[in-house]
C-alpha cells in the first residue's frame, strides 16, 4: 500500500537541543499508527514535523508523495486540550476549519447546507447531535473532546493527527472515546497518527505501534497489531496476546527511559 506519510532520516533541533534524530517511519494510507515513548522523547516534535508546522533540520518529510516545506492542508489535529472557542456553539466550533481551509472557505455560502449536514452527521456519530447549539461551558470534558474530534474531521482531512487527545479524561470516558474514534475511523478510513503515552490505547486503536527512544527520539521498534481483529471491543482487553503486547511495550519503554539515580534506601541506612 502507498505510504501517505514517510519520514526519512529526519532530525529536528531547537537551538542546541536535538529533539529527534535519525527518525524513520512509514504510515500507509488509510492505516492507523500510534507513537509511544518515554516522556520528552520528541513525540510532539513528530506532530509538528508531519503537519509541516516546523521544518525538519535534516532529512526529509514526505506527505502524499511530496517532500513538504510548509503546513500541509490535508491534516486535522486534536490535542489533549479541546480548545473550543467559548463564544461559539458546538456546531459553530465544529465548522470553524471550513472557514479557514481552502477551497471550502470560499464556498461557505454556496455549500452552507451541505457543510451543516456534514457537521451534524459527525456530531451524531459521536453522540453530540443534541448538544449542537450548546456552548462549550455547558459540556463535560469528554463531550468537549468529542466536539474537538469532530472539528478535526469536518474538512475531511486525509491525515488525522492526535496528540494525547484523551490524556486528561477519566478512564471510563477515555475508553468510551476509543470506541468512538474507532467507529469514525472504520467508517471514513482516513490515515491517523496518534501520539500517546497510554500503551493500551496505542495497541487498541492502531494497526502499528511505533516505539520511540529517549531524546533525541527515533523509532526503535514497530509492533503490528493485526492479530487483534476489528472492531476491537471489551473482548480485546481479555486476549492474552493483547496483554502480552502491553507488557512487551512497557519493558521497551522502561529500557529507553533516562536512568534515574535514586536507589531506594534500605531501612536503617542513612538517606
Amino acid at each position, binding site marked *: 500500500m502507498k505510504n501517505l506519510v514517510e519520514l526519512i532520516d529526519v532530525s529536528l533541533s531547537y537551538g542546541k537541543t536535538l529533539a529527534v534524530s535519525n527518525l524513520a517511519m512509514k504510515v500507509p494510507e488509510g492505516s492507523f499508527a500510534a507513537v509511544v515513548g518515554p516522556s520528552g522523547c520528541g513525540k510532539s516534535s513528530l506532530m509538528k514535523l508531519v503537519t509541516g508546522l516546523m521544518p525538519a533540520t535534516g532529512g526529509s518529510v514526505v506527505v502524499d508523495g511530496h517532500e513538504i516545506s510548509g503546513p500541509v492542508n490535508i491534516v486535522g*489535529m486534536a490535542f489533549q*486540550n479541546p480548545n473550543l*472557542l467559548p*463564544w461559539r456553539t458546538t456546531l459553530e466550533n465544529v465548522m470553524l*476549519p471550513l472557514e*479557514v481551509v481552502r477551497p471550502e472557505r470560499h464556498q461557505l455560502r454556496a455549500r452552507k447546507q451541505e457543510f451543516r449536514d456534514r457537521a451534524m452527521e459527525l456530531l451524531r456519530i459521536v453522540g453530540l447531535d443534541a448538544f449542537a447549539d450548546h456552548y462549550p461551558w*455547558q459540556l463535560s470534558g469528554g463531550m468537549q473532546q468529542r466536539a474537538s474530534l469532530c*472539528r478535526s474531521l469536518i*474538512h475531511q482531512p486525509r491525515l488525522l493527527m492526535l496528540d494525547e487527545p484523551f490524556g486528561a479524561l*477519566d478512564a471510563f470516558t477515555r475508553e468510551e472515546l476509543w470506541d468512538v474514534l474507532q467507529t469514525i475511523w472504520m467508517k471514513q478510513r482516513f490515515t491517523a497518527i496518534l501520539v500517546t503515552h497510554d500503551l493500551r490505547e496505542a495497541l487498541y486503536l492502531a494497526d502499528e505501534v511505533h516505539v520511540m527512544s529517549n531524546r533525541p527520539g527515533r523509532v526503535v521498534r514497530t509492533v503490528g497489531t493485526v492479530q487483534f481483529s476489528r472492531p476491537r471491543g471489551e473482548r480485546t482487553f481479555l486476549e492474552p496476546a493483547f496483554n502480552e503486547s502491553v507488557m512487551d511495550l512497557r519493558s521497551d519503554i522502561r529500557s529507553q527511559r533516562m536512568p534515574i539515580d535514586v536507589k531506594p534506601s534500605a531501612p536503617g541506612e542513612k538517606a
Partner: protein
Amino acid sequence: MNNALERSGPVLLSVALLLVWELSCKTFEVPPFVLPSPSLIAEALAENFYIIWFHSSQTLLTTVIGFAFAVAFGALLGIAVGSSRVAYTSLYPLLVAFNSIPKVAIVPILVVWFGIGSVPAVITAFMLSFFPIAVNVATGLATIEPDLRDVLRSLGASQLDIVRKVGIPRSMPYLFASLKISITLAFVGSVISETLASNRGIGTLMTQASANFRIPLVFAGLVVIAVMGVVMYMIFAVIEKRMTGWATRGATFGIGG
C-alpha cells in the same frame, strides 16, 4: 436577607459617611472654607445649578470625545501589538515610556499648539485613556492557546485569519474590562487640562471658585465629577456584561477534563 444587605451596602455606607462628615463639621465647628459640610455643598450645588451645568456639560463632551478616540486608537494599537512580534518589540518600549510621562506636563505644550479650550482637554483625555485599552486588547490576542494556533495554521490559516477568527473575539472581554477603567481616566485627563488652561469646564469652575474662596462650590464640582465618573463606569459595566457574558459563565472553559 443577606442578599438584600449586599445590594443596599453601597448606599448604606455612603449615607453613613455623609452623616459622620456632617456631624463632625457641626460638632467640631470646622470653618466652611476648610471643609464644608455636605449640606453646605448641596446648597452650593442647588444655588449654582446653571453654572455647574454649563461647565459640566463641557467636561462631559470633551471626555467622551477623547475617550472615543482612545477606544478606536487603543483597540487598533492593541491588535497590532498583540498579533505581530515585530510590532510588539518595537512599539512596547515606546508605549511604556509614553505612559510614564505625567500628562500634566504635556498640557502646556498642547496649549502652545492648539490654544486654550476644548482641544487640549480632548487630547489629554485621549492620552490618559488609550493605554489600558491597548494593553488589554494586546493581552487578549497574545494569549491565544498555542495548540489552537497550530490547529488553524495546519489548515493553512494566515496570521490575519487567526486574528480575525480567534484573536479579536477572544480579546473582547479584555477590551470591555478596560473601558470601565479608561472612561474614569478620561475624566481625569479633561479635568487636568481644564484646571490648567481653559475657560469652560468643571476644572475651570473649581479653579475659579477656589480663587474666590468659594470652597463649597469647589466641593460641588468634585461631587459632579464623581457622579459623572460613576455613571459612565456603570454604563460600561452593563455593556460589558451584555457583550461578553460567555467569558464569565462557567469558569472552566478551554480546560480539558
